[in-house]
């Protein structure tokens, strides 16, 4: 049974810090409305808040897990690791937003505020142990995301993205709730740990209702991680949203969704009941589909951002494989994957953001001949692209290798091969950017705007983990290995 509220709060510091940061940001923004002086202050505040959350999370990493708030929230190292990734992702996204001109200057503080909100939602989602908190977390995440998608005011595409996102989110949440209601009806509880004790011994009648219900339940989660066939919104939304928002979407909600699916799967479906088999079966089919559809769709794209959106769908499929195997290795691989994916995505979107700022769009052609203009940036981009495709010795490869090993350990060879072939397909479109950047000559003389030394350094610094994690990954995989779930 959980701890009482005050004691619980002591274990809930990172979330609280983020909440406080968000409120402070609101206050600062309110106090300095339409005043440029707010910008550094806002940046500083978010930075401090996130870093302190990060530090506390890192410190918590080695602590034993426990459930708080009357067993409705679970604090364990798995969740903490996921939260670390999300915090870092938010930090990166906020930094990109600061630099990008895709978001109006006035709205940058709003971006930070809402990113904090989404982060809180994501953190809640990650550690939710009952359906209510899961729902609340998901909606916190979603509702703020809708707004973030429309952050580019007066832009039709941005508006449309928000509209689509909100409508799609609405229907998925509704379907999920409908599924939840039946789960609640059958099992009589909304608490996952309590459900876990019941699931191995269900009657067949109960099973008959529960299987569809959990499927309905999955819709809400599947939509969040954009897994096929609930991915339809994501390319449109990613394309319509401003680039920092897209980068943010590609990391935080996705990882939160992954974490919660992983938690649910490990908790509820780590047994041999028909329900678990159906869930795992459905999940593996979706994983395979997600990879394939994501990667194949990415090929034909003109916009790099949209390509990255599809590729993130593909990566979601690969990450799902880490869940499908329902094992410690799977979780470890998932976390490692997410961790490397964070850096790769940030660098990629960061660079795309600069290109977009300079040329007004991010079509592939805009990347031609960049190597001759901005070698450091281009080399970073090349490294990231190869890493995303999974070429050794880069971290993307190691991540994929981990997932592979988890899949092969379970003897799911077919899934492994599908993942492998997808890796080849993904290489094709990642290579397209590299080809343009390196083999082609530039169509214009314009240099990329805003690539100050500091930004180049940031890009370089973000690329360093992409390389080093590919060679010296022992430590990180060790940490990921330690990151276990409290209850399984």
């Amino acid at each position: 049974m959980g701890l009482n509220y005050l004691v619980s709060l002591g274990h809930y510091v990172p979330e609280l810090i983020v909440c406080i940061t968000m409120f402070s940001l609101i206050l600062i923004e309110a106090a300095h409305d339409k005043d440029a002086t707010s910008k550094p202050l806002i940046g500083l505040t978010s930075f401090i808040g996130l870093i302190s959350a990060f530090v506390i999370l890192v410190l918590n990493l080695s602590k034993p897990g426990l459930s708080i708030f009357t067993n409705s929230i679970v604090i364990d190292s798995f969740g903490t690791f996921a939260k670390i990734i999300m915090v870092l992702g938010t930090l990166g996204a906020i930094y990109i937003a600061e630099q990008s001109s895709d978001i109006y200057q006035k709205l940058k503080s709003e971006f930070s505020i809402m990113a904090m909100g989404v982060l809180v939602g994501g953190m809640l989602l990650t550690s939710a142990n009952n359906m209510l908190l899961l729902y609340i977390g998901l909606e916190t995440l979603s509702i703020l995301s809708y707004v973030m998608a429309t952050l580019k005011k007066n832009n039709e595409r941005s508006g449309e993205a928000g509209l689509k996102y909100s409508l799609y989110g609405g229907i998925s949440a509704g379907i999920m709730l409908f599924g939840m209601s039946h789960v609640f009806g059958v099992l009589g509880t909304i608490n996952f740990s309590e459900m876990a004790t019941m699931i191995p011994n269900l009657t067949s009648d109960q099973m008959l209702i529960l299987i569809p219900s959990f499927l309905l339940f999955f819709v809400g989660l599947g939509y969040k991680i954009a897994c096929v066939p609930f991915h339809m919104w994501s390319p449109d939304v990613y394309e319509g949203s401003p680039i920092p928002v897209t980068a943010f979407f590609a990391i935080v909600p996705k990882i939160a969704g992954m974490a919660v699916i992983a938690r649910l799967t490990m908790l509820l479906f780590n047994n041999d009941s028909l329900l678990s088999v159906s869930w795992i079966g459905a999940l593996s089919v979706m994983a395979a589909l997600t990879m394939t559809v994501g990667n194949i769709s990415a090929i034909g794209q003109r916009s790099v951002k949209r390509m990255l959106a599809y590729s993130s769908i593909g990566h979601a499929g690969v990450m799902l494989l880490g869940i499908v195997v329902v094992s410690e290795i799977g979780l470890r691989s998932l976390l490692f994957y997410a961790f490397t994916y964070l850096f790769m995505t940030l660098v990629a979107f960061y660079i795309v953001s600069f290109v977009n700022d300079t040329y007004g769009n991010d079509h592939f052609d805009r990347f031609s001949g960049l190597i001759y203009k901005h070698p450091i940036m281009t080399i970073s981009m090349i490294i990231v692209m190869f890493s995303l495709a999974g070429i050794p010795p880069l971290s993307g490869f190691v991540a994929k290798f981990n997932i592979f090993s988890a899949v092969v350990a379970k003897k799911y060879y077919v899934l492994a091969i599908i993942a492998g072939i997808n890796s080849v397909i993904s290489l094709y479109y990642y290579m397209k950017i590299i080809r343009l950047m390196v083999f082609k000559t530039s169509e214009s003389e314009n240099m990329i705007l805003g690539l100050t030394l500091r930004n180049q350094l940031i890009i370089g610094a973000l690329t360093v983990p992409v390389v080093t994690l590919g060679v010296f990954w022992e430590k990180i995989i060790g940490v990921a290995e330690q990151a276990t779930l409290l209850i399984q």
Partner: protein
Amino acid sequence: MHGSSHLLNWILWMPFIGVLGNLIIPSKKANAIRWWSLINTAITFILTLVLYKQFDTSVAGMQEAFNFSIPWIKQFNIFYTVGVDGISLPMILLTGLLFFICILSSWTVEKSVKGYFALFLFLQGSVMGVFLSLDFFLFYVFWEVMLIPMFFLIGIWGGENREYAAVKFFLYTFFGSILMLVGMVALYYAKGKGVDAFNILALSGGHFTDLKLSMFGTEFSFSKLFFVFMFIGFAIKVPVFPFHTWLPHAHVQAPTAVSVILAGVLLKMGTYGFLRIAYPIFPAASVHFADCIAWLGLINVIYGAFCAMAQTDVKKLVAYSSVSHMGFVMLGLAAMTIQGMNGAVLQMFNHGTSTAMMFLLIGILYERSHHRWIVRPDGSKGFGGLYTQLPKFSIVFIIAMFASMGLPGLSGFISEALIFLGIYEKYTTITVLALLGLLLGAAYLLWMFKRMFFGDVIEECKSYTDMNKREIAYMLPLCVAVIVFGIYPSPILNIMKASVGKLVTLLGTY
């Protein structure tokens, strides 16, 4: 396993030191970059010779004296393990030699000198890594890393259609290696995740012969299934028909030195993979699929030769001839006899030298002519009377050509003869048909030679100058190698025979 000698480490990392040096030298100082690269490859080559000197030919298998192993990733029991045996040493020597020569031949590269040489040395390091690794994971990493410099070298410094060729090469190989990756991980678990689960030597020896696995309700033999995976991975590199179509593109589009490396070293990585990984780890499956390998080898020989004969681009012709010649290696591998296997390894080495010569010569010619048509698309002659115009060049070309078609006294013959001796008893029909490849091999080369070198000097060729001192300097070692190993192959055969014999003995028990 922790050996005391760092020689292999030096051989492996020296090229990467070269890369760092090249990155530090400012790109304006092109000559400094060239010289630095040359010195670097020279040191590497000398180190390989030192290795050859210290190598104990009586030992079968890995030479403990050179082994070096430290843990890399504890969770997976991945080690950084390097070692050398009689199968890898010829390849290491070849790599050392060819890269040195290629740096010399790349002296005339003017486009982004710094990037070119850095990538080139990077390529050397990764190729060395493939030949030296004893840890499967390490092997895989180097196997894949090698693609990156190749991709850029073909893509940036290549011919007109370079982009397509580079992409094709990359994707093709990547596809194959993904299958290999799956096999590698499966082996890791089949071996029980222990400290030796990625160690190629520990995996070798047929531990997985009786392992079964079931999928879709059917039982598969573990070793057969994953042998096929490995086979495809390596076959793409060799390249074995029907996975060969990347090769003509890549060869033709690549700059000279890269073609040389591609044909001379990289193709051998495929067959080396068979000898190092597929055969020792799955001996039973190898024996089971020997027929298949032999037939594919035969198709390679014949098909490559037929296609070569139809080419009007001389580089493409030589590229297809590589397909044909690697078919002989596959035949030797399929033989699984001591003659055949030794012949195959020797052929790997010899083809490395002779094809390297061919590509270097075509490169030399290309620098003068800027085209490679034997017959232009409009039907006119691309070259004519080169014998008269370029006498030195022609003589070297004759040596290379006849070595390539297996003239006795030059290196190709012994290996081909050994392969045939090895394969005849088991596959008489295949031998008879493969001999046809020998015939066709002479036909397309001589036909090409006739069209390009005989007759009157055509107007266009009159301005060509003969080989200069630098070009002679780098052709000379290869000429010597081709002739010396044609007459006296023992220096190479002696280092390999114990290791090859051990492998054959292993295969013989299945």
